[in-house]
């Protein structure tokens, strides 16, 4: 069963869109804006607002009806497919099955100075009511802060015998994060240590899909917290039989 966007009637296909064009603001500009909407598969397109941004640029707001349909059943979601445990459950699991401590080394890397994200995951205080890894019994959390280059990150990870490396990337403009994230995986491979670590990346604009694509074990975006990443890490270590207690 396929669906369409919903305005005020089932499957009426109503959508709103806006963008700028490198054209003066004019009826011709509006018609060009419409032409784009048509190419996107919209019909009954209305340019409801047009305003000049300068002599050479103009901005348009449009409404229209899309004829596209999607069958929700067929839509795949790419997300960390381990369910998240609570802090307590995680601590209990480590206590029971693993040789504590599990060591997480994390940083906001490259030229990225944003620490709030990585701090939210690693520091005592945590974020939005979720304590950070530092507070977890059985977990050793080392937060290197921001602007840490890839070499120093690896160095520290080795020094502390990290089980898990956590990287935060917030600035994504001109794909600066892709370059930096790729470089780190290449570094691990060059040093032949990719398999020694579980490597996880996160950030407001990071998706699990992107992370996998770049060779990371997982990616976490907004509204993900310490227990989400810890759960994932443990499941993976369990799979890989890392630091499991021998019975």
């Amino acid at each position, binding site marked *: 069963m396929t669906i369409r966007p919903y*305005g*005020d009637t089932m499957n009426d296909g109503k959508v709103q869109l806006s963008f700028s064009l490198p054209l003066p603001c004019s009826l011709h500009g509006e018609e060009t804006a419409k032409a784009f909407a048509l190419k996107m598969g919209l019909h009954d397109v209305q340019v409801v607002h047009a305003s000049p941004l300068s002599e050479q640029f103009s901005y348009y707001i449009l*409404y229209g009806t899309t004829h596209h349909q999607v069958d929700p059943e067929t839509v795949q979601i790419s997300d960390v497919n381990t369910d998240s445990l609570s802090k307590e459950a995680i601590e209990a699991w480590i206590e029971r099955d693993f040789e504590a401590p599990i060591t997480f080394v994390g940083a906001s890397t490259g030229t990225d100075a944003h620490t709030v994200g990585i701090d939210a995951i690693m520091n005592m205080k945590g974020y939005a009511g979720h304590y950070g890894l530092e507070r977890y019994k059985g977990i050793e959390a080392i937060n290197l802060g921001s602007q840490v280059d890839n070499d120093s990150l690896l160095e520290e990870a080795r020094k502390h015998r990290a089980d898990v490396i956590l990287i935060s990337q917030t600035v994504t403009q001109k794909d600066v994060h892709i370059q930096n994230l790729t470089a780190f995986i290449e570094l691990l491979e060059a040093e032949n240590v990719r398999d020694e670590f579980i490597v996880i990346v996160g950030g407001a604009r990071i998706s699990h899909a992107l992370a996998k694509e770049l060779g990371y074990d997982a990616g976490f975006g907004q509204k993900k917290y310490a227990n989400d990443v810890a759960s994932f890490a443990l499941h993976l270590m369990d799979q890989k039989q890392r630091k499991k207690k021998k019975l």
Partner: protein
Amino acid sequence: MKLNVDQAQVRRCKNHAKTIAQDVQSMIDEHSTVAVERTILRMLGLDGVTALDVPYANALVDHIKEDCDLSKGVVHYVTYAMHETQQTPQQIAEAVASKKLSLKAYQALPKSPYVALLEPYIDTTFQIILKQRAYRAETLAKQPQKTTPELYVIVATGNIYEDIEQALSAAHKGADIIAVIRTTGQSLLDYVPYGATTEGFGGTMATQENFRLMREALDGFTQKHHRYIKLVNYASGLCMPEIAAMGAIERLDMMLNDSLYGIIFRDINIKRTFVDQYFSRVISAFAQIIINTGEDNYLTTSDAFEHAHTVLASQFINEQFALLACMPPELMGLGHAFEIDPNMPHSFLYELAQAELSREVFPKAPLKYMPPTKHMTGDIFKGTIQNALFNIVAVTTHQSIHLLGMLTEAIHTPWMSDRALAIENAQYIAKAFQAFSEEFTYVEGGRIKKRAQDVLNNAQGLLKTIQEEGLFATLEHGRFAGIKRRPTQGKGLDGVFKKHPDYQNPVLEAMLKRLQEGS
């Protein structure tokens, strides 16, 4: 009270308005209309439509109008027929509709002595209405009183089932009040369509079944979430009292009810709709349904800064009409709006002044505050800000019925998402500004106090003129909304008639009696 307007001046305004309303009331008392007569029948339990979809109420009234003399009122004919045929009003109407029965014979007879026969029927309907009243009162008593304005949104898909989806979404998002807008043409129909409907333009048919369906859906939400959602529809139009009656029976909580709106914006005949309005307001008063008046609309055709005083003057008049219909102030949702051109410097100050003024002049009235509409454009981001400023004024001046502005006002009737964004906008402002009004006092001689005083002065002047020339002349001069209307023109004129000395309306009397006894 933040403006401290001169209460003596306010009293003078109210006295002008009182005289104005009383003049009209004397005309009202001498007349009845086909709509009033149909309403009496509905209050006697008449329901259903003929094979040709003509409501029995219409069939019966039309028969009397065409074949007999309607000036004696339907009660005259129905009571004689009941006495003679031992049938119920419904059975009589059906017989008449199928031409099995003519009431012609009763035309010549003296004033009917059989009015008492109606008591059980009237009583049944009253019991239904009283039950609905009680249910509403109890449910509302159970939940905490909101300290910020009640959020009011409209649904207008044209399809009652789609409307329900939208209404539930709005309730889910936090709406307190939901209005189902009528399809564009309905207010000019001289009958009320029947049954559930799915085809409408810019709105959905107001039918008793549609009322019932929406009420049921909203009550369902209330059961689940323990928050009562008020339901609103539109009475103003050619079927004003009939729709008021349907609303009373199906437990609507508010009714748009204003003949001035009908006259000015729908070209409905002046006499017709004033007579209809009186009966409809008595019904609403009895059913404890809040009315909403339409002064806000004036500002869609007249400039909101220059004509602000016409809104206030009209509110004064509407208040008096409501009082004459035995309405307590608590049921008077007098309308006004935030419609000053955003390109005007100090627009926010003037809006604040106007809103404070209405609040202060009508302290007990659940004021209906309308959002910006006229100056909304396709710029949905600017529109979002216009609505936010409107919300700030609504919260800061303690408006009661807070009609939420839609960012797409200039584009289409609200989508589900437009409504959700409007509710989120209002909720954010309510949270941030809930106590703002306690934080400051207005500067003496400042723009705000001066503006409020100017508007009050001009309203007083206008009321004085209206008292002198009479409301009908005022409408002929187009003093409201700049639109001129004559009492000898307009839709529905032929449905108005002078009452015969033998005319009787026990339904009206019964309600007035109870209202005066205050039960």
